[in-house]
């Protein structure tokens, strides 16, 4: 039996139990989830605590959550109701102003989802499972329509209170610059529109956070994984399931996204400090050089950490890395080890570089076999854990992360901006 087949079998067995042993599943997933039979999307659902461990609860949980999601779409997007839709509405101003405030958020989301994963065509393609109420609305319910209006006709709309439908016609004529992201024909929806909808709902349901740039880079890979599930029954609900998994994941990392928490213990600055300390401990020479060059961790690690490395690697490599991150019980301690390993593995270049070439190098991490990075990260983590006398969640007898990584497309996703003249 091939290694791949054997690993699939191990996963199948672990998932076959009536009550899933989360510790064990984490251990397995930590070493990479096989890219077969929809294992990854299923295991991510469990690791992100969306699916309960008791399998007899799966059906009802999924039914319930997916129904919730349908309700969100209905209440927030399709028929938001409230006074604005009522003909006898007495306070049109307030509801209109809320509408425009939402549109500001939407405008930012819209810009970002159109810039999501430009190196792959996936997000421009039509989904098999569009939201019918929106896809068959003559364009009226499409979120991006709303922002095109607010950009171009904000004042007109506010002043005259024109009907949305009428305006969208006007815009359609004007918009000659839609490019690849032209809305698909009636009844169809592109994947980027689905991502836009999820982010908008998230912003509406979490007003404390709203939408922050970078969230698109977190939700994108999850959605991609779910929407490519070979199992059609799961694929059909990729959107709803992804929304809740994303919500759960954000609950763990949201402090990175809140400016006022930058200085708190859970905020991004503290995590950058931790990385710097980890580097100092594991590679004092590099750490020292970067200190001397005044190359601050925030120049590169701010993005690494807030996006869980999503802009640094190609999508298949990223999925492999996220298997490990999602399996990390103490999320996201291992992330710091990975970042530290990344720096260690290019230490030779760093040592020979000046400030400028090192910033460039760190901001455009070179293609590399991810299993190399993950194995080095594991070394660092073991050392760290020995030093700190904390309990290691990993099986210490395992020598390394066995390679079920896929190499190949190892170029970074930050394609366009990579080269720089000097």
């Amino acid at each position, binding site marked *: 039996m091939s290694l791949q087949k054997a690993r699939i079998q191990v996963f199948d067995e672990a998932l076959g139990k009536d009550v899933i042993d989360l510790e064990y599943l984490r251990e397995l997933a930590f070493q990479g989830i096989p890219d077969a039979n929809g294992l990854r999307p299923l295991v991510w659902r469990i690791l992100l605590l969306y699916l309960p461990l008791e399998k007899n609860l799966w059906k009802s949980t999924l039914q319930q959550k997916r129904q919730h999601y349908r309700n969100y779409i209905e209440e927030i997007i399709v028929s938001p109701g409230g006074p604005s839709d009522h003909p006898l509405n007495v306070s049109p101003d307030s509801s209109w102003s809320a509408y425009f405030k939402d549109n500001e958020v939407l405008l930012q989301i819209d810009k970002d989802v159109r810039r999501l994963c*430009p*190196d792959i065509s996936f997000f421009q393609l039509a989904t098999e499972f569009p939201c019918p109420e929106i896809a068959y609305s003559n364009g009226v319910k499409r979120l991006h329509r709303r922002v095109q209006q607010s950009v171009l006709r904000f004042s007109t709309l506010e002043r005259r209170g024109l009907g949305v439908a009428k305006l969208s016609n006007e815009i359609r004529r004007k918009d000659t610059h839609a490019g690849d992201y032209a809305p698909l024909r009636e009844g169809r929806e592109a994947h980027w529109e689905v991502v836009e909808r999820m982010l908008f709902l998230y912003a509406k349901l979490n007003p404390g956070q709203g939408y*922050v*740039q*970078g969230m698109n880079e977190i939700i994108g890979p999850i959605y991609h994984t779910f929407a490519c599930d070979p199992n059609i029954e799961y694929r059909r609900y990729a959107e709803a399931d992804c929304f809740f998994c994303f919500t759960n994941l954000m609950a763990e990392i949201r402090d990175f*996204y809140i400016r006022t928490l930058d200085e708190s213990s859970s905020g991004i600055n503290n995590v950058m400090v931790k990385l710097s300390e980890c580097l100092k401990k594991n590679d004092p020479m590099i750490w020292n050089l970067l200190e001397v060059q005044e190359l601050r961790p925030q120049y590169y690690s701010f993005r690494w950490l*807030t996006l869980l490395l999503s802009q640094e690697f190609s999508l298949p490599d990223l999925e492999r890395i996220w298997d490990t991150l999602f399996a990390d019980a103490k999320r996201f301690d291992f992330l710091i080890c990975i970042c530290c390993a990344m720096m260690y593995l290019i230490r030779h270049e760093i040592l020979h570089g000046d400030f400028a070439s090192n910033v460039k190098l760190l901001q455009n991490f070179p293609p590399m076999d991810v299993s190399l990075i993950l194995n080095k990260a594991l070394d660092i983590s073991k050392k760290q854990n020995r030093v700190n006398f904390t309990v290691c969640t990993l099986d210490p007898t395992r020598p390394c992360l066995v390679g079920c990584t896929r190499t190949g497309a190892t170029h970074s996703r930050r394609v366009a901006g990579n080269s*720089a003249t000097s």
Partner: protein
Amino acid sequence: MAKKTYDLLFKLLLIGDSGVGKTCILFRFSDNHFTTTFISTIGIDFKIKTVELRGKKIKLQIWDTAGQERFHTITTSYYRGAMGIMLVYDITNEKTFDDIVKWLRNIDEHANEDVEKMILGNKCDMEEKRVVSKERGEAIAREHSIRFMETSAKANINIDRAFSELAEAILDKTSGREADADHARIAVERRPSRAPPTRACCT
């Protein structure tokens, strides 16, 4: 360590609302290329380009910042070291123009007092979608005694010119300082009344 291949090093900073085209402008300048497929900037990005001005090799170290509010604590820490700041808005988006005032306040709070500034009204290739007239751009620049240009990263309008003018302004200041301390003082005093060149473009 790399050999020093330049005479002067200028640190420049690009700021402005998200989506106005900062990354595209920088990419056009550094790689002479335009692509619509940039991912949004998270935190801060960095490019280097060496230019020649008045027989001097000048290395431009350009920092491209993220526009969204959330990133301001991260990005404002870069203002201090900057010798030149390009403040970009989008001529097809009113709000990005209104926010210029906010960005100027940020500069006042966080940048060196004598930092050279320039306002860029980007996307001037999209005449049919224009909502901010060139006159309004010129007016706000005049009001704050700042240089102004309309640019297009897409059509490659005024991009090189913007960078070299900003670099030249910094060079004026630096060489003045090097040559003669008195002269530098005069230059600084004279600065506020100096009319910014608001040149025609995009016509």
